[in-house]
Structures are given as structure tokens and as C-alpha cells.
């Protein structure tokens, strides 16, 4: 998920021919004053904090100003403030538009129909979730044909615009599809698309690009606004790492198993906090890297849950022991290891003083006890249950 701030979204709209009002991004009041005095953006103008979360207007992070002094004061009041956990670093100055009507357009992926979904409403400017179903046109598009004329005509009919604006709409719809497809967007949304006089103008833009398609956009400057600094760091290293607020770190292999492990801890009364998926790796260096990442998050206790299928338990165990030598964590560890070379893995961990289980429930209860200060670090190492029949695959 690569979320773009409004001005970057508008840059993309502009590149694809969607009419956007003139705008200039500034980083402080001084810069704002220079822009406004030069007449590059005339007053009255709209001052908009560039943040990723919605609802900034109601919170005072969008202001209509009539004089240069008012605009500069508004910029001064926004820069450095926090909105929904995000610090305002950039502010967009943009010309004021005399809005006749506000419309809504977007294309996103519909997971249920497994098609791109065009949504259009003659009543925009509000959150899409708040619109009644009959006010929202939903058109699933075919991925192999893209948006075709009859679908565009359905939107044009629903919007009932004057002729010049209807022509604009036709072009904007083509642009919207082109952006969705060519820029590899997860979402491209114009809300509101404003009727100004008898023409259309995109007054806001929300664009989310697909992370996995970034290989096609090598020149693109990424920003993952929704990630915490640690998540960002892990992301850059290719580690699946998510912070969810509790104080137990979970290190497992495979996203499903990691999620299930968090769930088991949660259902045993614990507060899982870190999701760290090792993936299918059996490379000790990768395990070391993942473990150092976990150490940075500084959880109260760490639970390692490994199912060795493709990954071998003894390789993971050796990697962990190696990582521990480097990281010297100040928190206790509990491991649960099952599958391929399970016995060898448990032996390696025990030799390094880590309590190891093969039973998930037992291990989870020990972890929760440690979290709540009810157990000592040494921990009981229960005898491992017999490994599944066979051994190595």
C-alpha cells in the first residue's frame, strides 16, 4: 500500500489530463508568504494540510483564507501540528473555486467480484460510506477491456451535467481508468469532483498505489505514511513486521501461522504486540536480521513459533542462537518448535537455555505468565511430544 498525499495524487491526475486547480506546496510560513506575495497563488486561497488520514477539514486542517496574512497565519498554525498521529510537514496552497455541485468518482479493486469497481455518485464531497445505496452507482469493470463507452454513458446520465461538463466527465473517466491501470493503483478517488461554472475540476485526490507493482515504477519515490518508523525499517529490509500495540513479540514462519499464534496468546489472556513473519527462509542470516528487528521493538517477552516444513527446525534454532549472541536481548524467550527436524531444533535451543515446547497451548500459557510477571525466565521446558511420523521430507 503506497498512500499518496493530496498534492502527489493531484500531480498524477494532472499528468493524465484531469483538470486540477493551481496549487503550490510549502513547508513553512515564510515560504508561504513568498508564494502568495508573488501572486503565484492568488488570494482568496485554500490552505490544506497534507496528511494521509481523512476528516482533516472538520479538524481545522483545511482553511479558506481571504488575505495573504490570513493564509500565512493558517500555514503557521498547521505546520508541526499533529493530525491523527501524523505530523504536518507540508501544506498545499490552492486557488479557491466557486463550487456549483460536488460529485464523486473512484476506481478500486472489488475483491468479491474480482474486478476493478467504478463508483460514481452525483452527491460527492461527503464520505462515500455515508451515501445511501441508490445515490451510488457501482460498475464492475472487466480487466481485459477496461472502461468502455456504455459504462461511461451510465455515469454521464446519472450526473445530468451541462454539455461542456459532460464532455469533461467523459475524458476524466478515461483518465481515471488509465491511472488505475497504468500507475498500478489500488485506489484512485476524486472527491469532490466539482462543477465550477459549466466545467469540472478535481478539488481533492486520493491515490493509493500497489507496492507489489513498484518494479514497474522504478523512478517513483515511495512513502509509506501508514507505517510506523520500525515497520518502515522492516519493510525496507523485506521483513513482514506489524506493530499491533501489545507487549508480546511473536516470531513465526508464515503469515497465517503468525496470525494464529497472536490469536492463541490473545485468547489465553495475553496482549500480543508484534507480528514478525520469518517466511519460508532457512537462511540463518535472515533469522538473525529478523531477530535484531524484534529486539529493536523491545517487547516484554518473545514467543517463537516455528513449524518446520520447508524450513528446518534445526536451521531456525541455530539461527536463533546465533542471533541471541549478537542481540543479547533483555527479555525472556519461549520457543515452540514443530515439524521437520524438531528434536534437533529443541536440543539446540535447550543447550542455549531457551525453554522449548512442542505443544502450542502449553507454550502460549507460559508466555502469558511471563508477560504478566507470574513465571520466572528459566521456564519449564516440557518434554517434547513425538514428532510427526517420517522426519525429513
Amino acid at each position, binding site marked *: 500500500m503506497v498512500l499518496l498525499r493530496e498534492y502527489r495524487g493531484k500531480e498524477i491526475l494532472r499528468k493524465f489530463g484531469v483538470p486540477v486547480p493551481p496549487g503550490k506546496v510549502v513547508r513553512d510560513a515564510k515560504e508561504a508568504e513568498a508564494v502568495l506575495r508573488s501572486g503565484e497563488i492568488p488570494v482568496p486561497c485554500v490552505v490544506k494540510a497534507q496528511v494521509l488520514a481523512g476528516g482533516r477539514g472538520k479538524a481545522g486542517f483545511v482553511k479558506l483564507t481571504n488575505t495573504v496574512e490570513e493564509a500565512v497565519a493558517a500555514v503557521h498554525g498547521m505546520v508541526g501540528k499533529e493530525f491523527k498521529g501524523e505530523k504536518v510537514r507540508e501544506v498545499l496552497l490552492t486557488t479557491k473555486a466557486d463550487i456549483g455541485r460536488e460529485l464523486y468518482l473512484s476506481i478500486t479493486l472489488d*475483491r*468479491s467480484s474480482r474486478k476493478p469497481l467504478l463508483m460514481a455518485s452525483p452527491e460527492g464531497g461527503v464520505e462515500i460510506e455515508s451515501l445511501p445505496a441508490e445515490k451510488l452507482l457501482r460498475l464492475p469493470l472487466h480487466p481485459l477491456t477496461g472502461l468502455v463507452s456504455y459504462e461511461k454513458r451510465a455515469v454521464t446520465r446519472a450526473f445530468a451535467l451541462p454539455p461542456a461538463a459532460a464532455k469533461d466527465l467523459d475524458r476524466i473517466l478515461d483518465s481515471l481508468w488509465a491511472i488505475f491501470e497504468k500507475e498500478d493503483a489500488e485506489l484512485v478517488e476524486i472527491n469532490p469532483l466539482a462543477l465550477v461554472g459549466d466545467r469540472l475540476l478535481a478539488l481533492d485526490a486520493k491515490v493509493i498505489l500497489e507496492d507489489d507493482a513498484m518494479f*514497474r515504477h522504478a523512478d517513483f519515490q515511495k512513502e509509506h505514511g501508514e507505517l510506523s518508523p520500525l515497520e518502515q525499517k522492516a519493510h525496507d529490509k523485506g521483513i513482514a513486521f506489524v506493530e499491533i500495540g501489545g507487549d508480546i513479540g511473536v516470531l513465526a514462519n508464515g503469515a*497465517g501461522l503468525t496470525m494464529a499464534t497472536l490469536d492463541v496468546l490473545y*485468547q489465553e489472556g495475553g496482549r500480543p504486540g508484534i507480528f514478525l513473519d520469518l517466511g519460508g527462509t532457512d537462511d540463518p542470516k535472515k533469522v538473525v536480521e529478523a531477530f535484531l528487528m524484534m529486539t529493536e521493538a523491545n517487547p516484554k517477552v518473545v514467543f517463537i513459533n516455528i513449524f518446520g516444513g*520447508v524450513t528446518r527446525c534445526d536451521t531456525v534454532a541455530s539461527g536463533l542462537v546465533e542471533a541471541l549472541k549478537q542481540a543479547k536481548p533483555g527479555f525472556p524467550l519461549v520457543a515452540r518448535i514443530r*515439524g521437520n527436524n524438531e528434536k534437533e531444533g529443541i536440543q539446540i535451543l535447550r543447550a542455549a537455555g531457551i525453554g522449548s515446547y512442542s505443544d502450542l497451548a502449553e507454550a502460549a500459557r507460559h508466555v502469558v505468565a511471563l508477560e504478566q510477571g507470574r513465571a520466572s525466565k528459566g521456564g519449564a521446558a516440557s518434554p517434547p511430544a513425538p514428532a*510427526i511420523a517420517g*522426519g525429513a521430507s
Partner: protein
Amino acid sequence: MSILVDASTRVLVQGITGHQGTNHTRGMKAFGSKVVGGVTPGKGGTEVEGVPVFDSVREAVDATHPTATCIFVPAPYTRDAFYEAVDAGIKLAVIITEHVPFHDMLKMLYYGRLHGARIIGPNCPGLATPGGAKVGIIPNVVFREGRVGVVSRSGTLTYEMVAGLTEAGFGQSTCVGLGGDPVNGTTFVDTLELFHDDPRTDMVVMVGEIGGVAEEEAAEYIGKSFGKPVVGYIAGRSAPPGKRMGHAGAIIDRGRGTAESKVNALQKAGVKVAKFPYEVPGLVRDSLKEIGKA
């Protein structure tokens, strides 16, 4: 006797000379799969694990007549690899590759449909019929032949589940890993329909997770017309909204795709939903007793 793959399945491996391709070719052969050929452009005429390598899928098809392909090629090239397989007449593609853009996946899905080709995956562990064939990367050691169908959006969690079933004495008819992406080539409903028609499958274990509505759609199908017992497990009960939990598809988005919604829908459809993964074998035993098969 199973769904999708069996002893007659002839497997092609695209990307066979890579690390994963080579390792899992060995794994598939050890399982008993007939791996008849591999493709890596520029490596034609060589051999990997005793399997002949070709420069193109067309050449491999002409020489070895595969019925399924297992795709390991990197994400930027996955789409074209799939098109090549479909154009050469292959009707089942198992895409192991992770990080395939969903834009590519949408095109593959509908291109495949035009030619009657099914996709399992992407970002999936593949599928296996114990005693028949494996196409993918699920560890061989977890399986045992039997009559429980398994379908899942996860990888390792599935291995755990299957290993748990095997240990408790419940073998599997076929085990299908659908993949962790937002768009899957084959869905829960598609797979359940196949299990419904398979006389060798007595019941099904389905492993879902947060994100999307595939489990809710499966629940609707099960409630209406499945007719065999289903035991379910949903991962992500403790996941907060808006966070992508490792899988690209595992995200609660604008209130949709919660574990609660999925668990409720499945329970309403008569599915026994396990709270903990290790409860699954017990629920399978109960279900089989109810239909007089245990």
C-alpha cells in the same frame, strides 16, 4: 478420488533452474508426482533433478505433454509465464510466486477463463493429493491418504493443520492452498464445489483469515448446498483494523473482512469453527462420527 490433481497428473515446472524451482522439483518427485519437464528460457537442453529443461513451454508441451504447470518465476515475469502456459494449452496453473501485482492477477484470471485454464494462487503453497500428486511446496511429511478435504488461504498454518490431522489419524483426499493475496485464482466456493462432487471426500476443513469476503461467500454456499460437514478455523481474531498481517489479502478494510464476521457467517451455515488451531482434529472426529464415518 480426489480433486484437481491425481496420479495421472503430469507436471511442468516453470522457473525450474532457480533455487526454489530445483528444490521443489526434488520435493514433488519424492512425493511421487510425475514431473515431466521444466522451462527456463536460455537453459533448454539441460536437466534438473533428472527432468529435461526446455526454452519454451511450447517445446516442453510438445515433448512431454504436461497437464499442469507449477510457476516459480519471479513476480515481474509471472504474468507472461502464465500466458505462455495457457497459449500452449495447459489448463491448470499453480502459481507459487509471491508479490504478483493484483493488476496482473486480474488479467491472468480472465485470460485463463477465456481458455478454460484454472489458476491456484498466486502466493500459495500449491496443492496435493496424498498417494497421487503434489504440485507445489507443501512439505511431503505432513500428509496421509484419506477422506478429509483441506482448503486454506495460508501456508505454514495449513501444514500445521494437516500434520495435526495426520497425527490424529485423519488422512486427506486433497489439500488445496488458495494463497494469501487479495485476488485468488480459485476461491473457497470453487474448491468446495469440487469437494462436493468428489465421492472420496467425506468432509472438509477450511482455514480462512481476515480480509475480503471469500469466507462469507463460502458460508452462503455451505448453508445452501454443500451437504458435507465442514470444520473451520479463522486466523486473525486479534488483528487490528487497517493493518496488513503479512499476507497482502489479510487486512480489515473499512470495517470489512473481520474474523468475527467470518466466524459468525460460518457458524450460521452449520460449520464447526475451532477457536484454537489444535481443536481442529477433535472437531473433525465429531463431524465424522455424526455422519457415521468414524
